């Protein structure tokens, strides 16, 4: 279950990643966060961020210019 949503719409690199990291810091392992972004570069960035940090990218989708990610803290 997603415990919170982080809206980074309108923000540019690297703000969506920085804000996400900050939010994840305050979460417990196994909790998930939904992140919204309008930055097309965020698709590859969130994949790389999750690969490097070990957090799980459960979902990555786009709807009408808004990218939506579900990340599980690990």
């Amino acid at each position, binding site marked *: 279950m997603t415990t919170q949503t982080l809206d980074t719409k*309108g*923000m*540019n*690199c*690297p*703000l969506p*990643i*920085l804000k*996400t*990291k*900050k939010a994840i*810091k305050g979460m417990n392992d196994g909790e998930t966060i939904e992140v919204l972004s309008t930055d097309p570069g965020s698709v590859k960035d969130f994949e790389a*961020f999750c690969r*490097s*940090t070990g957090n799980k990218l459960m979902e990555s989708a786009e709807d009408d210019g808004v990218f939506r990610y579900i990340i599980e803290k690990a």
Partner: protein
Amino acid sequence: MPNEGSNNKKMSIIVTKGTLDWAYPPFILATTAAAMDVDVTMFFTFYGLQLLKKDLSHLQITTLGNPGMEMPMMGMHMTMPNIVSAIPGVDAAASAMMRSLIKKKGVASIPELRDMAVESDIKMIGCQMTLDLFEWDAKGMIPEMEIGGAALYMEGALDADINLYI
């Protein structure tokens, strides 16, 4: 101090430039690396030390000698001939234009990125020699600045995975 969830990777950046545009690469890479659990050290020397002054509102860009700078304007791109760039006030106008673009495009401001660097426990070393050379008072710099020299930087760089010079 290592970041939470540190992966034992380290990065160092030597920051040598003190303009509004060149302040971006070091702060973006440093904060992003910290977000990816990398232990980051930044060494600010020469003009780069401008970026540790408490007040950053004086940062400017210059179009002089920079043919790569194209500012979007009314659906076109504007470049500035050097002879125009040399006129007093042009740098200030170009800098104001850059600041408004940064805001409009949702790009973080430099003070905002630097605050995030502080929050992420990024180690920021201010070069003592530069302070002496330009007669800058350490009191005018942010309190998170640690004063040091080349040896302090080298100690960290020697066992870092990535060392950048910007």
